[in-house]
């Protein structure tokens, strides 16, 4: 009887603690997003929660916020080119180093992933020093080059993971059936690793679109980037327009993420 009771207390106290802490964690994770979206529909002038009333006025204000719109366009263009460069360079590199036991391949793997752990701000400063030494003025081009360094690791990581999950028997049978290397790549390898490349490209795009530390050093005065614009708006005054812009960003991201989840199993690949 007594041991039975003790077991029950033990079971309930353990599962109760886990549930309580996990619940707290879920609230912590979800609350900020929910609150930003709700506040963006306020009819008032402040970031009070809950809002005194609801309206679409801040979305209307957003339509006239030229600075934010221009900044968003710049960020999209830079993120687009960065993603293209990252996917081309990253996929080729991943093909070369995945499954290779050679020391050179292992070293290159560590090198290509190292921007992930280095403070991006330090790299931003270093890149600015290089460009000014070489006499190249900062421009959207320097932004794209800098962003590619910090975004390409995502493509390398997901593509290498996809390649190492591939069954080598498929390649052998393709070769033994007389297919050329190019045909094997196009018809067997590429379709199998496409989800990995897609997921990596998506993460690279998001990382570039959201990047502040590298952009701070490598943009010229004329090129306003969205996250920097929003950050400076927030430091100056707490503007509700930023809440409306944030909500639109959240919506766009959720839609993109759901599409990517369907196409590439995004959550599985991010966990790896």
């Amino acid at each position: 009887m007594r041991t039975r009771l003790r077991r029950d207390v033990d079971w309930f106290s353990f599962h109760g603690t886990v549930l309580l802490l996990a619940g707290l964690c879920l609230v912590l994770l979800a609350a900020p997003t929910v609150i930003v979206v709700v506040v963006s529909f306020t009819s008032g002038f402040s970031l009070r929660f809950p809002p005194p009333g609801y309206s679409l006025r801040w979305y209307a204000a957003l339509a006239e916020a030229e600075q934010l719109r221009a900044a968003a366009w710049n960020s999209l263009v830079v993120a687009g080119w960065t993603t293209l460069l990252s996917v081309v360079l990253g996929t080729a590199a991943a093909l070369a180093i995945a499954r290779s036991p050679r020391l050179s391949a292992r070293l290159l793997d560590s090198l290509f992933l190292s921007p992930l752990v280095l403070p991006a701000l330090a790299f931003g400063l270093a890149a600015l020093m290089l460009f000014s030494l070489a006499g190249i003025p900062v421009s959207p081009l320097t932004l794209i080059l800098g962003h590619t360094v910090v975004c390409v690791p995502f493509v390398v990581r997901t593509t290498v993971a996809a390649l190492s999950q591939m069954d080598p028997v498929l390649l052998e049978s393709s070769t033994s059936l007389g297919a050329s290397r190019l045909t094997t790549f196009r018809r067997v390898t590429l379709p199998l690793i496409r989800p990995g490349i897609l997921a990596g490209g998506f993460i690279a795009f998001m990382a570039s679109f959201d990047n502040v530390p590298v952009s701070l050093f490598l943009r010229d005065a004329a090129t306003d980037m969205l996250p920097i614009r929003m950050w400076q708006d927030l430091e100056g005054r707490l503007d509700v327009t930023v809440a409306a812009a944030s909500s639109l960003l959240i919506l766009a991201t959720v839609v993109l993420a759901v599409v990517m989840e369907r196409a590439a199993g995004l959550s599985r690949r991010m966990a790896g």
Partner: protein
Amino acid sequence: MAAAGVVAAPLRPGRAWTAAYDIRLALPLGAFFLVFFLAPLALLVLVSFYADPGMTRFGLDQYARFLLDPFSLRVLGATLWLGVEVTALTLLLGLPLALLLTWAPGRLRGLLTLIVLLPLLTSVVVRTFAWIVILGRQGIVNAGLLALGLTDTPLKLLYTEGGLVLALAQVQMPLMVLPLVTALSRIDPNLADASAALGAGAWRTFLRVTLPLCLPGIVAGCLLTFAAAITAFITQSLIGGGQMLFMPMYLYQQASSLNNWPFAAAIAIVFLVAVLACVTLLNLVGRLSRGRAQA
């Protein structure tokens, strides 16, 4: 020709796939990294050895200035300590959530995974902005405290270290939970059943079976969270405000407002070395724990 291929293929088994693609395919990215990643870092090291802001003569003055200055050392210490606090909080809340995720049935698991992933996909500025709304004078926490009569005047929550740790914990939480889920789902469920059958309670099973087996995941999660928390420039400056100075902002101030490149470079190098030292230390712990988990 095709027939020759069929005959030739089995003669060298495995060769076709272990080195399926030429290592030269890595050359374009390798060259790109040489020019735009390694060269800048080398230049950063070089510039840090200039003795004066005008960059006319070499010397160790910048490092001496940093390492002998109590203010700079306090900034470094505060930054690393902030990383420890955030990592501890994310582990305390993230591990139970990871456990819940591995217990949850299919559909619920998908929903929970989405909630975990969302912050990772939302802009850092947006995530940080949300915390200003929550912690501000008119924010939800203060409104609740006032309504409950727990306080008469709004509390100062924004621009405090507690607020900053909480906000950073939310921002970095996915980096902790995702490796934990991976590690937990690799554990053979029979082990927990065996432990229960042998008479161990839920707590004992967790502490003696589950926890040691997912140590590699814990180390991986701590590593990512720590590195991200100490370099989270935006969150640090917006939630921490002007009173609290951490390494990234210190570096940025010296480089951009004061235009002191050699000192900024020295700060960057000291910061890089500190981050790498912490990462290496954690990696070492991870390798040791993996050895134990397999034994």
